[in-house]
């Protein structure tokens, strides 16, 4: 099995309305990679689009718009978990030696159909993501005494981090008081506990160890990947509302594959579509004990780009942007949000109510 590296990446600015369609958004991120990376585009074997768009043949349309004729052109759709699923697919294509060089692009519009799962009628009238987030939050508060202030601190931290990220949707910090006083959408989840859908795209270029050195002196290696799908519905996603079982399973597999543990991770991008999800992620990934205090300083750095709360949530682009961020951090190119001396990074990406999860561990 070949080793696989991330050799280039690019993310567009995330905005409420870019006026671009999903193809134009995707091409914008890809063009940055094609301009900045030294390779012959005839050598690009695969183009994988991560998106919940209803547009048909979309990866192939993007390929043609970019003047590419890859062997493999496919769209990957798994709601908010699409981006890392596409990266995992690209990894598999290269590791298995079917391909040498694969471009993964995530692109989404703010009004994506991926924002709401209509199929899951077990939720009756309460089918919005904020409804299951509120249930997870209440369950965690009941069992572990987690407070609304602790959830608010996640929003404060990630919004502060986003002020250093030129691509973030939200570039203004918020205070705990602002979060606590924001409108209760589904009590105890408030408006500023929630991420916002937006337009955005992100792309990463994956290469085999045979050719990665031609494109960069500083490849970031994919060390381990874990994935788990427990269900599509909220009803069957987890038996314990204080944990995301798919994430625990995916993390276990990723740690095993990488021969690394949570203590080795220096920087992480975790799926904070709601503040409670970052708390659950910290526990499910083994970064802190169940019901442990939220770390504010020291230890692992989490969501230095601003996370989903700060950057916005273009559903299919999110997982790719998370991978791009960790690649950027590990190669020392994260600018104002750089975590100094980081050697290993982790991406944690979820779909609807944690019904599926992906964990990717990367290293220098």
């Amino acid at each position, binding site marked *: 099995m070949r080793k696989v590296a991330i050799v280039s990446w690019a993310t567009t600015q995330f905005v409420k309305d870019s006026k671009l369609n999903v193809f134009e958004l995707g091409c914008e991120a890809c063009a940055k990679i094609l301009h900045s990376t030294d390779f012959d585009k005839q050598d690009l074997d695969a183009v994988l689009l991560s998106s919940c768009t209803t547009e048909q043949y979309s990866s192939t349309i993007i390929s043609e718009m970019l003047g590419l004729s890859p062997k493999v052109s496919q769209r990957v759709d798994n709601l908010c978990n699409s981006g890392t699923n596409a990266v995992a697919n690209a990894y598999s294509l290269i590791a298995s030696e079917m391909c040498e060089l694969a471009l993964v692009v995530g692109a989404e519009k703010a009004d994506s159909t991926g924002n709401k799962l*209509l*199929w*899951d*009628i*077990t*939720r*009756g*009238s*309460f*089918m*919005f993501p*904020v*409804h299951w987030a*509120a*249930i997870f*939050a*209440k*369950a965690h508060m*009941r069992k572990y005494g987690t407070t609304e202030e602790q959830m608010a601190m996640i929003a404060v931290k990630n919004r502060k981090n986003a002020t250093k990220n030129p691509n973030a949707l939200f570039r203004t910090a918020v205070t705990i008081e602002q979060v606590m006083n924001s*409108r*209760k*959408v*589904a*009590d*105890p*989840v408030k408006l500023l506990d929630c991420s916002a859908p937006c337009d955005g795209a992100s792309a990463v270029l994956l290469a085999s160890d045979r050719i990665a050195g031609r494109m960069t002196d500083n490849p970031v290696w994919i060390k381990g990947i874990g994935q788990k799908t427990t269900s*599509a*519905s*909220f*009803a*069957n996603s987890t038996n314990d*509302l204080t944990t995301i079982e798919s994430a625990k399973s995916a993390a276990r597999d990723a740690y095993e594959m990488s021969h690394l543990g949570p203590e080795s991770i220096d920087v992480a991008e975790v799926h904070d579509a709601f503040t409670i999800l970052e708390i659950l992620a910290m526990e499910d990934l083994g970064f802190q004990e169940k019901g442990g205090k939220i770390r504010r300083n020291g230890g692992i750095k989490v969501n230095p780009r601003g996370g989903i709360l700060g950057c916005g949530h273009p559903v299919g682009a999110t997982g790719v942007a998370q991978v791009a961020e960790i690649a950027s951090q590990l190669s020392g190119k994260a600018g104002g949000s750089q975590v100094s001396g980081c050697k290993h990074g982790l991406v944690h990406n979820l779909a609807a109510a944690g019904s599926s999860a992906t964990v990717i561990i990367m290293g220098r």
Partner: protein
Amino acid sequence: MKDIREFLESIAAGEFKIPVCGSCGARAWPPSKSCPNCYSHTMLERIDPIGTLIEFAISNVRNREGAFGVIDIDGIKIVGGLKTQRPSAGMKMKLSACGLREDGSPFYDFEAA
């Protein structure tokens, strides 16, 4: 169950029925015409719609205001509106009403049992 419309028609009529496998007896939830265990056909069957409130929260989403929660009815988990003054986790609840909203999506309401 012929298809999902049969389940929704039942809900629209105010009757809460669950698809049950005609072969192995497993329940299909979320509702499905085929059994997730042995892939045989399912048939809608009445169940005693009494369960336990696992967790609840308060929705302020427009047109979806009010208390809601996850109710476990003998292993079937369902999210419904709570038509009771003081819901609490562990409370016994029974389905008091179900139907379809204007947009065609189902609703399930529960009250204290």
